[in-house]
């Protein structure tokens, strides 16, 4: 059974204008984050006290912030932090959630208990995890990543369980069991590949949401702490100068919007390409 992510997916994405555009945007965003040190015109932490709150100009393409730092440079490096936070929480929460989802689908006796537990987790909106973890570990990127991971676990578990259950109903699972295939091997060889497209679509969409949530927490002062360049924290800092130099907060906010939009569009396009029936 081959993984469902094949070149054909790319081709299908290419045929859909929105899909192609969003894929292009995501690629650009990721490239910008990776190449930040080379693309950045100057050090994102260097303060130029003679050029504070400058509007965009030929020298500072996106202007400077309240401490005279180059916003373009901070955006590029902030993109890294923002994306890394998102990816880390998606990976941590996603892997754990997928494992729980497989277990729930596979070991029917554990299903009720596991899913009830997932319901309890779902009863905590992600932002509350963020608040609680900020209280425990103090505000910071780590708290945000942990909070968003926890919030991702039950969602991923549900998605995986749902797709896995469909496969579990098929005869060949019984057959595979009958020939003595081990549980782990069965999950890995049969369940996992069938859930891949759902996981893939969910992850893309979730990454957008996680970035959105993470930036909101940073904006509240519970996430990334200044002077770390992170888009949400930059927007929060710039808010103080909203009426004097709106670009300081508007540009990073707009940045978050564009990133999340790109991932959401890509997720939608992927869903349409891979499995239009998925309801994620």
């Amino acid at each position, binding site marked *: 059974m081959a993984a469902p992510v094949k070149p054909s997916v790319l081709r299908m994405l290419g045929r859909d204008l929105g899909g192609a555009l969003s894929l292009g945007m995501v690629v650009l965003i990721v490239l910008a984050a990776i190449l930040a040190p080379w693309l950045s015109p100057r050090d994102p*932490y*260097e*303060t130029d*006290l*003679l050029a*504070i*709150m*400058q*509007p965009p100009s030929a020298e500072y393409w996106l202007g400077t912030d*309240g*401490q*005279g730092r180059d916003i373009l440079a901070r955006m590029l490096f902030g993109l890294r932090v923002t994306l890394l936070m998102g990816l880390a929480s998606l990976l941590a929460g996603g892997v754990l959630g997928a494992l729980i989802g497989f277990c729930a689908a596979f070991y029917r006796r554990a299903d009720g208990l596991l899913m009830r537990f997932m319901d309890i987790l779902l009863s905590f909106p992600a932002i509350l995890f963020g608040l609680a973890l900020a209280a425990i570990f103090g505000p910071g990127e780590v708290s945000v990543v942990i909070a968003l991971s926890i919030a991702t676990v039950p969602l991923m578990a549900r998605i995986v369980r749902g797709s896995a259950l469909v496969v579990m109903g098929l005869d060949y699972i019984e057959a595979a069991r009958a020939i003595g295939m081990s549980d782990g091997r069965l999950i890995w060889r049969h369940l996992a590949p069938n859930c891949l497209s759902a996981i893939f679509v969910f992850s893309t969409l979730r990454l957008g949401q996680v970035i959105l949530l993470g930036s909101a927490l940073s904006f509240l*002062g519970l996430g990334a*702490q*200044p*002077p770390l360049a992170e888009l949400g924290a930059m927007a929060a*800092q710039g*808010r*103080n*100068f*909203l*009426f*004097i*130099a709106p670009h300081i907060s508007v540009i990073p906010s707009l940045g978050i919007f564009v990133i999340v939009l790109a991932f959401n569009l890509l997720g939608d396009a992927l869903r349409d390409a891979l499995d239009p029936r998925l309801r994620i």
Partner: protein
Amino acid sequence: MLRRATLAALAAIGITGAAHAQTPARNQIVVMREIDSDRYDPHRSTALAGGEVMTMLADTLVAMAPDMRTIRPLLAERWEVSPDGLVYTFHLRRDVTFCDGKAFTARDMAFSLNRWIGRTTPRVTSPVAWRAGDVKEITAVDDHTLRYELNRPFSELLSQLTLFFASAIDPATVERLGDNFGVQGFNGTGPFCWGSWTPRQEMVLNRHQAYRWGPDFYTNRGPAQVERVTWRVIPEAASRVAALQAGQADITQYIPPAFVEALSRVPTVTRHTQPNYFWDVFMGFKVDKPVVNDIAIRRAVHMAVDRPALVRAVWAGTAEPARNIVNPNAADFDAESDRMVPGFDRAAAIRTLEEAGWRPGPDGVRVKDGQRATFMTYAINTLDNQRMGEIIQQALRQVGIEMRIQLFDATVAWGRLATQEFDAFFLSYPYVSATDALNLYWHSRNRPTPNRMNWADPQTDAWLEAGRSALDPAERARNAALIQRQLAEQAPWLTVARTSLTLFSSNRVQGVRAHGLYGAGLYKVLDVRTVR
């Protein structure tokens, strides 16, 4: 370019006026501030956020006139000082009542002052009890006479007694509320009475109807013109600016420097300044903690930071860059020490570090004997601290020193700043004179707070004691100068900025005057009235 555009925008808005609703009701004013106090007990709270409210809730024996020098009668209508400077006898007014209607007596005053210095049960220890001088005894001679006896003369006693720590509070209410005094209620003789408090949101004060004993530098001596004062916490600077312009609030002294100039040109808003104002922003070092215990590091910090540029960037013309610990306009300022404080010179900073053995490490941070040149700074989470912190952080990075910053919400910060978890901190403080300023921070007795530097030097203590009890002003000045020079050389703190008091009010209110005692811009607000 940007500034001009902003000014135009602000001015345009001002002309069109703030037409929409949500203006506070007539005879009520809304005062905005950035942070709340943790409580409103004059003997357990030292924050400006507490003081600015308590000066309205309670009165002191004597009042400070707006010139910041003249002492005027308040609860005491007159007083005598014995020739040896040890006994002060205060004759109290007979018409004063508390908010609950009870008559105010000398016993209430004695209780309040004794509570301040920790001589009541249950014992309350005010962190600033030392401001009361070396008290022998405070007693009520009769209902209207108070005897204040010192062990040693204290030249600044009357100025200290104008501060809100020396407020008169009702003993019965203190007993009834216990720990919750100043949290769930208050009972003072001030022009306003406790209405309700929603922490971090709002403090509502209602007019004290019987109030007739306001200081004589007010035209109206009571009761207050406005019926209600609402202190509203609005943490976002921009929102305060806009709310003031839109007429959603009436008065604030918490306008970020960046907005001051622009806001001054808006016709619907009036700016009030107080030239007699000593409130400095500084960075202190715990001199017994690793890294910052090295005088080379501390001096290098002084030389690495371009204070004039920093002050210009953060305070935008509303503060002056500082060098010495004491403001040049304050009494007993020492000009020689001002020259001794190291100024901005990055090359010199690097040289100093190199000479002291701090060599660049692999990550750019200097190392000496396996110790990285890194330290932790605590501060209250305000916009100024954030910006100042990041600028200093960057400046230090360029000479190979790593400064980490942890900012705390105001309600927690005071607790955290009382610990030994950090190496340096940002704070700002008001004072009346050099002796006042030095006594506050540098006596070994004042550790751990407010002497958060853990500065414990017998010589300093001796000079402080000598200056405090000196009856001759020249002798006091000489001692103050010696300490200033010692501190200039040792560099245990970096005085960053000398701020000025700027108060803004909307044109809906009149009679606003910037006062500034202990930083509180409004003092008693007796003359303030609404015109709409």
